[in-house]
């Protein structure tokens, strides 16, 4: 099967490596806006004859689409047009974007994707992505889910860091008491204990977690998204980034707290994962792409919590690929968010 990968940044490179390690992928076409900059990365993949690098142009994309099994969008910037073209060609799409505007654009493809029987997986990175899978798995332990709270630490690559910088200053919609409430990013401080890391103060950010989770779990009363940020991050979020982000991203972690009821009792499940953020995101994206290509994601547009019928199976696969899934036990009932 041929996979088409758009973008070979920190997350794209990890996705490429994971795709090439899959038995389902026999050919990888990498489309980049600046191919000269990523030639070294393509060579480092070490899959001569299997990987083809081309400049991202409409004609090159259309050519790559013909006969492709899946398109993985891992480049910053609007991917809506590329996703729409893929759906029209009945090729499933997986996007790692955590930009709410882009995710909304992808969700608009739901009708067309269902008609053509293909999946459009919006937000298939660390958060949303792994966060949605963890929430979906926790929900299988409950009779009814009422709240999901996602917190993250770290960024995948420069594009993720720039997006997080913007997400800390924007106005956002948060799902509260069964309705959308307008909130300011950078507010709502919570001390969050991440796996493999000490506590970090987290604040509201404009990320599409709430949007994707409420579509997956209609009984939700609250869905929130927070990210760890320092005082400097918040103070300078309204300014241009003071220094360039790290090209390979940072160490990251995700923590998902799911609240609901089981056998009439209140139930809280806390799950997490830690590692290099780009690696977590790339592994999730590649695994989702292989599932989409092999028809193991539900048709339609949505987050992984909506499209994956067996979250435990996919989490086990991620665990095999080195993503350690953890649960927080014995801490009692945490305070309300």
């Amino acid at each position: 099967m041929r996979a088409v990968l758009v973008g070979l940044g920190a997350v794209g490179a990890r996705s490429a490596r994971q795709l090439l390690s899959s038995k389902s992928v026999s050919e990888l076409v990498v489309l980049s806006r600046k191919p000269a900059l990523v030639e070294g990365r393509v060579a480092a993949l070490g899959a001569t004859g299997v990987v083809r690098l081309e400049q991202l142009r409409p004609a090159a994309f259309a050519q790559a689409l013909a006969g492709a099994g899946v398109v993985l969008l891992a480049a910053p910037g609007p991917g809506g047009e590329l996703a729409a073209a893929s759906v029209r060609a009945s090729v499933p799409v997986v996007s790692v974007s955590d930009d709410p505007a882009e995710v909304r654009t992808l969700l608009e493809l739901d009708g067309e994707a269902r008609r053509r029987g293909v999946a459009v997986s919006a937000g298939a990175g660390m958060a949303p992505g792994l966060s949605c899978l963890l929430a979906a798995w926790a929900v299988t332990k409950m009779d009814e889910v009422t709240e999901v709270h996602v917190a993250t630490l770290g960024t995948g690559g420069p594009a993720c860091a720039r997006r997080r910088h913007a997400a800390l200053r924007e106005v956002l919609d948060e799902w509260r008491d069964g309705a959308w409430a307008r909130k300011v990013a950078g507010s709502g401080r919570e001390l969050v204990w991440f796996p493999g890391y000490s506590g970090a103060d987290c604040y509201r950010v404009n990320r599409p977690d709430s949007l994707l989770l409420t579509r997956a779990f209609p009984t939700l009363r609250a869905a929130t998204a927070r990210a760890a940020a320092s005082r400097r991050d918040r103070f300078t979020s309204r300014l241009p980034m003071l220094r360039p982000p790290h090209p390979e991203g940072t160490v990251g972690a995700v923590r998902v707290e799911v609240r609901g009821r089981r056998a009439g009792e209140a139930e809280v499940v806390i799950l997490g994962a830690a590692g290099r953020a780009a690696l977590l995101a790339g592994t999730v994206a590649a695994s989702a792409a292989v599932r989409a290509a092999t028809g193991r994601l539900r048709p339609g547009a949505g987050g992984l919590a909506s499209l994956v019928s067996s979250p435990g199976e996919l989490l086990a696969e991620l665990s095999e690929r080195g993503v350690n899934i953890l649960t927080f036990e014995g801490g009692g009932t945490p305070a309300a968010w």
Partner: protein
Amino acid sequence: MATEHRGAGRRANVTLLSRALLAVVMAGLVAVIVRLRGSGGTPPHRGGWRQLSETDLEPMDQA
């Protein structure tokens, strides 16, 4: 006499305005300090993270 009276009234207005301005600036500074300082809660006193094995993860779908 009337001119002196008007001058005193203007001085009182300016004083009131400058005090109001000072109060707004002080409130802003306090807001910035409150927003930037402090902590978002207390760390958990018990419990810890446990890694889930593949067998932990898989059967849950059938539960």
